């Protein structure tokens, strides 16, 4: 029984280590690779990043102010392939998709409204499945 407990603790500690390591990598990745894409847009306070695997999806809903220019950045680790993302209105209608493989889109909004950013990580048939960081960054300017 004692031995089982020891192994359980070690196993849990290993997973905790993994989670902390992945989180730390995602923070470093975001700072180094994603933040610069915002250029002169003022970044929003919210940190939205996660470690995803092929086939995963993600979504962020937020109100965007009218009369403000925004840059939406979806920045992902190259190991995940060509991550797709799109913008949808509050009714779920598609507004824009990154069919050109772009990692960001610039928006000018007339009236304050709720928009949804939907992301999908392509499936992979690789033998070893990698996970990678995906960050959504929002910037605004006059």
């Amino acid at each position, binding site marked *: 029984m004692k031995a*089982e407990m020891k*192994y359980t603790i*070690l*196993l849990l500690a*290993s*997973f905790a*280590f*993994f989670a902390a*390591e992945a*989180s*730390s*990598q995602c*923070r*470093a*990745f*975001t*700072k180094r*690779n994603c933040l610069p894409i915002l250029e002169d847009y*003022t*970044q*929003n*306070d*919210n*940190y*939205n990043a*996660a470690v995803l*695997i092929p*086939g*995963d*999806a*993600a*979504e*962020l*809903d*937020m*109100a965007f*102010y009218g009369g*403000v220019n925004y840059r939406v950045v979806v920045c992902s680790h190259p190991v*995940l392939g060509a991550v797709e993302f799109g913008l949808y*209105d509050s*009714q779920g*209608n598609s*507004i*824009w998709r990154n069919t050109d493989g772009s990692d960001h889109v*610039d*928006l*000018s*909004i*007339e*009236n*304050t*409204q*709720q928009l949804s950013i939907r992301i999908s990580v392509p499936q992979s048939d690789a033998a070893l*499945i*990698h*996970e*990678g*960081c995906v960050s959504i960054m*929002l910037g*605004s300017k006059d």
Partner: protein
Amino acid sequence: MSIQSLFRKSLTFTIAVAALSWGCGDSSTTNGAGDDHSAATEGATLAQRTKTLKKIFRAAPSPMETARIIQKEGLPFNADYLCNLSLADQDGMSTDHAIHLGLYGADVSYASIFQKNAEALQYLEAVKTLSKELGVGSILSEDIISRAEKNRANRDTIVTIVSRAFFDLNQQLKSAGHEDLSGLVVAAGWVEGLYLATRELDGATDGLKQRIAEQKLILEDVLDLIDSYSDSPAIESMISQLQPVLIAFDGVDSGEEAAPTVDNQEGVIVISGGNELRADDETISAISEAIALLRNNLAKAS
């Protein structure tokens, strides 16, 4: 297979994957020739799971965005409406510090946007004090404060420093598993932003009233965000305290349903149309009263 054997195999597998992952790990401290390798590998490891998921992120416009649109509607700056700086020196629980940090975050944003840089620097110091209390003092190092002081006449630099600090704060709190504290910072920041926007309503323009009415959408974002951390008593308390404000917004008219139209203008996606939220004077007054009550409660001594 015995349970012990199963544990051993699981542990061996975990350690093996850890060793492989370690080789692909973060090398953020490397520089020079090592940078290329680091940039190519950080943020990726061998997958720890095979089952796919859908991650839902929650976010809300920052106090800096709100301050910017309020300023454009002609609202004057009045330092008397800002929180007392003594909140930073009060003892309290981490949840109290997080709430006060959110209030100060809106104050420093408001002062920065209105180019009241002396006030902005005072509140930045207060933010530094509180962030130390929460164990995330590194978001505002002496170097950053010094850079802010040297650039006190430059609004854009101050705005960038404040925005970066609050992004780092949010990132560090979430990464440390303190999502509830990050939620309290966001909620308190929204409360203070709306409080400041509703202090001088005599002669308020229609534009300002519309901006206040639009906060109904932002409140929904804030509630969605903090509701995802609702197992925390402090978050439950915040949700409960926001209910009278939510009720005050009932009078906001969402206007006729109007689908937005989209146009691509030289690479910029222009979204026109959509509903225009409006509120009459009675509703604006109710919102102003409800938010003042909540804000003054959050800003009082703990």
